């Protein structure tokens, strides 16, 4: 049983409380993005999660020669590191140096560009991201789209860009009776293999680790290693947010002790082997084909795009982002282009989600706004300002 651990590392570039009554002498980036807040949050999460977890990973990699892990760092995250905390990027580069850590590909701006009718922007963002990751010392043949958004078409795009594997969510309505613990080929693609997240075992750590209501609480490393070892199949894909360690579950929950003990406990089971995604897609074959005509993701109960495009407010804003692509690219203004791309960050749409207003704890937990309506007011006014800026520069 090949065990593939993959961690998503991302911090949205949070927006300023935009005022339509203020004068607009600043650059668009200064006008829209709250650097003070972004620095503050990045430094806080670095202290609670990224730095201690990276240090622990490095220690574990040195101690356990068979251990392997993988990450994907969004471009938005790396850019903020450069601005506010360069030492943080160094600590990831140190992990890459071990040769047993893989950084996966994704869209630089953590965007929904894969859903634009024209795929040019998507391809550009993936290439931008590749370049940044290579600077960190990473190399991969596996792609993971924003929030694991996936469809036959997205897999096809990834394949055309030369990727051999793509990550997504192992959901029942795609798999039917089949297990997520194998690789699959994708309908109308040739060769690219889909790696499916085992959401149960992933969420056991990511969501339920500190849940006192859970019948398996407390989760121990030896128990978890036993679960992995007793699985049937070729591989188990455990994917989660890196912020699981120290941020979603605080240090006092014992999450770091769990992580510290896990490689050793897994070592007690000879059938378990750590792999990176690239190793996995090269070493195992597809056992069947999946067919995903409509986009799936790893978000919410629905596991579709409704967390970002489920209501009219979200679709309107996404429409404006799309509409601005051609005029912004024509203007060839680097600053405008980068601001527009930063606004594509999926989080800005996520905050607008009104799905069952009575029960949107997860959305509220991550949102800096009072409500989705409040988030819309801010985002929409910024988009309107950008639209005005584009028009003004077209005239000039």
């Amino acid at each position, binding site marked *: 049983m090949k065990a593939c651990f993959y961690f998503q590392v991302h911090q949205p570039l949070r927006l300023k409380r935009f*005022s*339509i*009554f203020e004068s607009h002498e600043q650059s668009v980036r200064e006008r829209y993005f709250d650097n003070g807040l972004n620095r503050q949050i990045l430094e806080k999460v670095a202290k609670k999660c990224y730095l201690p977890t990276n240090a622990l990973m490095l220690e574990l990699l040195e101690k356990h020669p068979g251990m392997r892990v993988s990450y994907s760092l969004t471009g938005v995250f790396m850019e903020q590191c450069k601005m506010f905390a360069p030492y943080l990027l160094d600590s990831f580069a140190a992990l890459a140096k071990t040769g047993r850590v893989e950084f996966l590909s994704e869209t630089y701006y953590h965007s929904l560009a894969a859903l634009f009718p024209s795929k040019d922007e998507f391809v550009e963002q993936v290439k931008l991201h590749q370049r940044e990751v290579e600077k960190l010392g990473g190399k991969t043949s596996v792609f993971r789209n924003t929030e694991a958004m996936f469809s036959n078409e997205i897999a096809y795009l990834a394949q055309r860009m030369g990727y051999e594997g793509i990550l997504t969510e192992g959901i029942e309505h795609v798999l039917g009776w089949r297990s997520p613990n194998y690789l699959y080929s994708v309908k109308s693609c040739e060769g690219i293999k889909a790696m499916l997240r085992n959401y149960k075992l992933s969420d056991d750590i990511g969501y339920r680790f500190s849940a006192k209501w859970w019948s398996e609480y407390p989760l121990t490393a030896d128990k978890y290693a036993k679960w992995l070892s007793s699985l049937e199949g070729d591989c188990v894909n455990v994917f989660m947010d890196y912020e699981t360690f120290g941020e979603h579950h605080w240090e006092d929950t014992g999450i770091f002790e769990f992580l510290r003990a896990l490689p050793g406990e897994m070592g007690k089971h000879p059938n378990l082997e750590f792999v990176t995604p690239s190793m996995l897609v090269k070493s195992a074959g597809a056992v069947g084909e999946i067919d995903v005509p409509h986009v799936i993701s790893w978000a919410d109960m629905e596991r579709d795009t409704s967390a970002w495009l489920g*209501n*009219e*407010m979200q679709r*309107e804003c996404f429409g404006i982002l799309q509409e601005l692509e051609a005029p912004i690219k024509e203007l060839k203004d680097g600053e405008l282009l980068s601001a527009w791309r930063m606004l594509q960050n999926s989080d800005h749409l996520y905050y607008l989600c*009104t799905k069952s*207003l*009575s029960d949107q704890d997860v959305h509220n937990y991550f949102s800096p706004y*009072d*409500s*989705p*309506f*409040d988030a*819309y*007011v801010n985002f*929409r*006014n910024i988009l309107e300002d950008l639209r005005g800026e584009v028009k003004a520069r077209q005239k000039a």
Partner: protein
Amino acid sequence: MIGWEFPPFASGGLGVHCLELTSRLCAMGVEVDFFMPKSGEGVNSSHPNLHIIEVAKADISPYIFVSKSRRHTTYGENLMHAVEQYNKECAAVLVQRAKERGYSLIHAHDWLGVKAAGEAAGKTRLPIVHTFHSTEFDRTSVPWDFLVDIERQGVQNADLLIAVSRRTKAQLMRLGANEGKIRVVYNGVDAQKFNNGNGGNAALERFRQGRKTVLFFGRLTEQKGPMQFLHAAKKVLQVMPGTLFIVAGKGDMLPLLINTAIELGIKDNVMFLGYLSEEDQKRIYSAADLYVMPSTSEPFGITALEAMSAGTPVIISRTSGVGETVKGALLVDFWDINGMAQKMLSVLKYPVLGSSLSNAGKEDAMKMSWEKTAQSTIEVYNEAVARGKQ
């Protein structure tokens, strides 16, 4: 139940609450003797379980005249005398009726019923449930010690207190209430009542002339924030010059507000409507494109729920009780004129926001029923009676 006002002879949330609550309580099998001052117009009972007992004459609306400038004349003499008289007679009649009616408890509202409840309970040994719809701390920025003392007394006398929001609960604790005896019971709304959208009003339409319309509806007092509304209106008009602002309601700030509209140079875009009948209220909610409640301190804010049930998007002050419990609303800080104007403009400019707020607001209003309020109130009654027996 010791009340003060009953619609249509009402000036605020207290009256609406008493009418809606008593009718639901009676439908749920509770017998209510509702004490109120003689209105001179005759108030009819809506249910055989509801008996309206009018005692003493008082035709002064208590909250209209709560203002620093006038308290020593109108508020001080006439109203205080009337309240005093009402409480005295109320207590006497209540004690007398208690023997034949076999009451289980006394339910009083606000400072107006404190003395009657205390006196009657002293003689009958009945438990007191006291609801606070507002406190002196909410009504003015310079609380009047005399009223604060009465409210303190009410808080002490009660066996259980009902606060209309967590916000009011905090105010009651400021008055010395023990947290353990406060229960939060939110107000409700009759979602059907304001959701009839029966075609607006021709006269209003003529004045409106297709303009986007923003509504303020409440007593024209400092507490309700009409001044902030006008200043935000000025900002909105700089961006959308054609917008119409309606100020509905009466109160002692009216002359000041009219002057302010003139001074700000926005008088042609502001319409003062004065008192509204219930029919006109229904019309005005559905005619407005946006309802704004900029209160500096709003214990609950029933009108926001009414507007929501009519499908009108709402912007409400963060310092309000209703803002604690609804999701389909935009919140603002009452002092943040720019923020308020920006949110008003957003609703007016982006139809998608208005329709999303409207849908979410209707859902909220459906959940906030008076039946629920009555049910929770009965639970508090049962608890008070059980405590009394211990």
